[in-house]
């Protein structure tokens, strides 16, 4: 725990020591606002809820989280600081978890800053706050899944741009897995359970299930499993490829 915490602390401070944090936060807030209130035509919907706000989150994360996660390990490897880090008495798992938790906390901060939307709908109407809370929980879990994918993929390369592009592509597949365009393209010879399994991998399905107002165990476990799987991959890659 101690190792995780020192890494977590350094990383989180690191976000605010550079303009990265502020750029990310401002862009996230602007985009989530524009999508919800302008593109989503919130006022015309005449609904006192944040469904329109949350429905954009997978796409916001798709664009912004790879930008946040790309440097996590690629930068350590490029600059050689990974050698400094991994020769201190901490394990790769501690470093991986510490970095991930810092990034996740940071997106949590970004998400928390959108609470003005929550306040607005309460001012304008009488929303079901339980549903909104569930939406926030779901969005936070999904952000963690995007981040874990990005952190793992960032550890494969020294190049941040490669990390960004690869993470973007893989994340897109995770979103699109539930779309008919993807599931229909799977050849018929494959069994239906396989198609169903692919569809079950979709971030979108699990996220929209949560935003309907119920944080079901299976959806939460889904996102937590994705996080665990990718952090495991991340740890393995750091252990094996750190010196390459």
């Amino acid at each position, binding site marked *: 725990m*101690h*190792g995780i915490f*020192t*890494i977590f*602390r*350094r990383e989180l*401070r*690191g976000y605010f*020591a*550079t303009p990265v944090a502020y750029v990310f936060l401002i862009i996230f807030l602007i985009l989530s606002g524009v999508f919800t209130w302008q593109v989503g035509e919130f006022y015309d919907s005449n609904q006192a809820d944040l469904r329109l706000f949350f429905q954009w989150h997978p796409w916001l994360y798709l664009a912004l989280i790879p930008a946040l996660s790309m440097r996590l390990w690629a930068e350590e490897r490029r*600059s*050689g*600081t990974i*050698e*400094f880090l*991994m*020769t*201190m*008495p*901490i*394990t790769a798992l501690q470093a991986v978890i510490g970095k991930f938790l810092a990034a996740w906390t940071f997106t949590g901060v970004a998400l928390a800053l959108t609470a003005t939307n929550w306040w607005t709908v309460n001012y304008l109407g009488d929303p079901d706050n339980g549903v909104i809370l569930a939406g926030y929980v779901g969005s936070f879990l999904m952000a963690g899944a995007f981040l874990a994918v990005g952190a793992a993929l960032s550890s494969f390369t020294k190049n941040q741009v490669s990390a960004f592009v690869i993470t973007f592509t893989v994340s897109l597949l995770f979103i699109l897995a539930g779309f008919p365009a993807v599931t229909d393209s799977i050849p018929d010879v494959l069994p239906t359970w396989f198609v169903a399994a692919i569809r079950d991998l979709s971030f979108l399905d699990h996220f929209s299930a949560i935003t309907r107002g119920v944080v079901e165990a299976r959806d939460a476990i889904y996102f937590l499993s994705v996080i665990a799987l990718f952090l495991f991959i991340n740890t393995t890659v750091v252990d094996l490829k*750190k*010196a390459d």
Partner: protein
Amino acid sequence: MIEISHLTKRFGRFTAVKDLSFEVKPGEVLGFLGPNGAGKSTTMKMVTGFLSPTEGTVRVAGHDIVTAAQAAKARIGYLPEGAPLYPDMTPRTMMKFVGRTRRMGGAKLRERMDVVTGLVDLGAVLDQPIETLSKGFKRRVGLGLAILHDPDVLILDEPTDGLDPNQKQQVRDLIRSMAEGKVIILSTHILEEVEAVCTRAMIVSEGQIRFDGTPAELRAKSRYAGAIEVEVDPGELASARESLGSLAGVASIESVETGIQSARFILIPSGEGAPLLDAVQDKAQASPWTLKSISVDRGRMDDVFRAVTTGPADSTERNGNLTTNTTTGGAA
């Protein structure tokens, strides 16, 4: 304190370190020499637990670096090649980070930070982002981080590389002052540095130990060790060469430069019998030509280094090819 046995590292088909075995005891400062790509950095990376060995073991203070990595790493201070640091942090925040990671408590950490700041002279830049610091300061920050927890074992990969002569001297003084009771291994290209700070010199080439002894023994291996440089009048050069060349202890004569004012040549000793100096002086007294000056060569490190690292067989022929021969491996 450090026991390395049968250490081997292969990258694909390339063997960077081949069956290396040696021990380093407390109080020893081991200078690790070798051409680029000789396996110095690879060995250090394995000793510090950054790379895992293909074969063999490393034990640091009794802890195996693979099976008891955390305990072993806790005893080591390491300055990696090029002193990588987080550019957005300051020397102060970086020291705090390292101290906390190494489980140093508040008061102890503050005290060590003060000591280390003084030792590597960082007071003026303590709160400046590392990315704005000069190369010399960065190297000193890296060194400060390596010694922050007062480790028993210090591994320094080219600690003076890129420093100016004053800074080099500072770092060497610092290493010397810390040596007591510690194990220090440092790698370097600079042979004088080995003489200045090390109690033991080791030359590795192509992943194997080619020499292991004191810096003085290393110097003595030079064919110039005990050689005599003689200066005479250019007009008397031929007769001087002839009469001194006939001395029993002289193996060969090497020409140096012949100017208008003076001519010089070097008498290479055969290594048998008494030192040459007396014989040369006696001969000069008895001869008609005049000896203008005379000096004894202590041996040349560069010369030994080349001879040792390019193999015993055809050392002189391959001297010019040293770099091309040894950098093809490409190991860090």
